[in-house]
Every structure is written in C-alpha cells, then in structure tokens.
C-alpha cells in the first residue's frame, strides 16, 4: 500500500506534524543564535581571519589635550561600522602645525597653541586581497583615507599615512 508523504492531518509519514517540525527547526535556530551571542565569546558577526600582521599609522590633526589624554596604548580601535581595526601600539603627540596665509600673501606653517598633531601606531591582523589589506570583511586600509575612528573612550578622525605588513608569524 502506497503511503502519502503528508497525510490528511498534516503529519509527515503519519507520524510527525509538519508544523511541529518547523517549530523545532525554528527553536533550534534560535538556540544556536543564543549560543553564538552569549557563549561563544563573539558578537554574532562574522570575523575576518587575519593571515598577516599589519602595522599602520594614523595622523590625527589639530586636537586638544583632552583628546590626547583619552588615547591610551593598548586600547582597541574601531571604525564607525564598529569593526575592530587594531590595537593602539604607540602615541606620538607634537604641537599642531597648520597652513595659514600671511598679510603679505604667503602661505606658511604656523604652530597652533594648545593643539596637537597625533600619530597613532596601530597593530592589527589583516588579510591581503588584490594588493589591499582588509582588517574586516569590508574594511580595507588605503593611503590618505581619512576615517572616523573611536575607542571605548574617545572619537576622532584620522588619516592613514603608512601601512606595513608581514605574514603572520613571519
């Protein structure tokens, strides 16, 4: 006797309710999401597995002492998509210099009182793809790219001024 796959009561091979089956799959899916969110140590997003060590410098122009003080070696750095983009490995602050015109029609460098230009050295894990270094699935380092950056304590803008990379472990 040939048996229907789904009978008139909506049961698979006369045993399992299709609705129950769908509900079980949904609950299992939810359970996996809860596990990933709370117990796997991640935030649920897909991370790029880095295969090279990248060191890059960011130039932060003309900020006040408050910003300099809020930056600390060892702090994790993020872009504005909240991707982790490395750890601060060095901070070098010097009096800010900006270009201004004089009364005689020249453009000269002028030191700015109470302002600082900060060079941040950042170390990160990255992946090389098409001659670009990706620090996440979507974020690639590019020379002279000015980007909003933040740590847990401070937000500002920095321009990428150097990029060095070595293969991880090399």
């Amino acid at each position, binding site marked *: 006797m040939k048996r229907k796959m789904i009978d008139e009561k909506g049961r698979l091979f006369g045993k399992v309710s299709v609705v129950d089956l769908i509900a079980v799959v949904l609950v299992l899916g939810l359970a996996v999401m809860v596990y990933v969110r709370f117990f796997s140590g991640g935030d649920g997003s897909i991370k790029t597995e880095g295969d090279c060590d990248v060191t890059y410098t960011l130039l932060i122009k003309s900020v006040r002492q408050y910003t300099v003080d809020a930056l600390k070696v060892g702090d994790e750095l993020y872009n504005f998509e*909240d991707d982790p983009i490395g750890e601060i490995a060095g901070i070098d602050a010097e009096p800010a210099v900006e270009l*201004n015109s004089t009364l005689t029609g020249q453009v000269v460098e002028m030191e700015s009182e109470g302002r600082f230009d900060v060079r941040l050295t950042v170390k990160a894990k990255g992946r090389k793809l098409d001659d670009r270094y990706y620090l996440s699935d979507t974020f690639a380092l590019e020379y002279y790219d000015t980007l909003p950056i933040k740590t847990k304590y401070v937000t500002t803008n920095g321009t990428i001024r150097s990029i060095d990379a070595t293969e991880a472990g090399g």
Partner: protein
Amino acid sequence: MKEKIKGWARKAGKYFNVFDLVLLAAAAVIAAVLLAAPLFKGDEMVTVRFTVETSGYENGDEKLIKVGDKAMDSIKKYDMGVIKSVSCEPTVRQVIDYDSARVLNAEVPGQMTALVVFEAKAKVTDMAIAVDGGLELRVGDTVSVKTPGISFSGYVVEIERGEAQ
C-alpha cells in the same frame, strides 16, 4: 513515586505530544538565557564620571548650571545623572597672530566657558560606555543637556577610567 510520575505523564499526554514538550522546554531555556543576560557582567550598570565643556555664557549665565542638579539628555531623554562640580574659565577662540606667525588662543571678552562634571550610571562594555544604558559617550562627542535651570550643549572632554575600565 514512579506511578505518580507515570500518572502525570499520562495526563500531560492528553494535552501535549512529545514535540510540544520539547518545544516548551527549549522555549523555557531560551527565555531563561535572555532574561538572565542583563545580569551578566557586561551589562552591569556602574557609576561613571565625565566632563562636558560648554561655552559662550554672558552676564553670569553659567551660574545657572548648578551642582546637585539632575541632568537629562535633551534629545533622547536619557538620565545623565547628577552634576557634581562646575568650574568656569574665560572662553577662548583661535586667532592668527601675524606678528609671531602663530595661531593663538585669545580670550573672548565677556564670555565664559563652564567645565561641568557629571556622575551617572552607565552600562560599560569592552567597546563603549552607555549612560543610562543607551547614550554612548566618548571624548569628542557633542551632547545636549537639560537641567532644571538651563539647557545647554557641549563637548565631552573627559571620561574617568576608574570603574568604567
């Protein structure tokens, strides 16, 4: 005891099948995890101190910012805690000194800047400090504040690391 359990199972069987029971158990576990999540350390509220710089007050208006006043974010209404101290200094503006070829901070006549220290409860994670669980604050951010005596906006210029570490 065994008979009792069998009895309960028989009674439950009238209303639920095995899948329903599995579903109920799984739903209960997920609900417990979600309800317990805020109790985990990452979501704990701690006391944080931060300083906001607000400028351009004339005729002593900066005195309307008072120690002890409760403060609220005037955009999304987050509780910004209590004002713990206020210090004032002349407002400065950057100007070019053509003689020395330097950019200097010059005082603006008649205007004052207030540095206001707040103490508030915040959710602290590895990535952010969120006052009242939702208002993320970092040095460099602009905030809008409402107190009983005055509304003002300014820059966050300091966040104490202490408990927020």
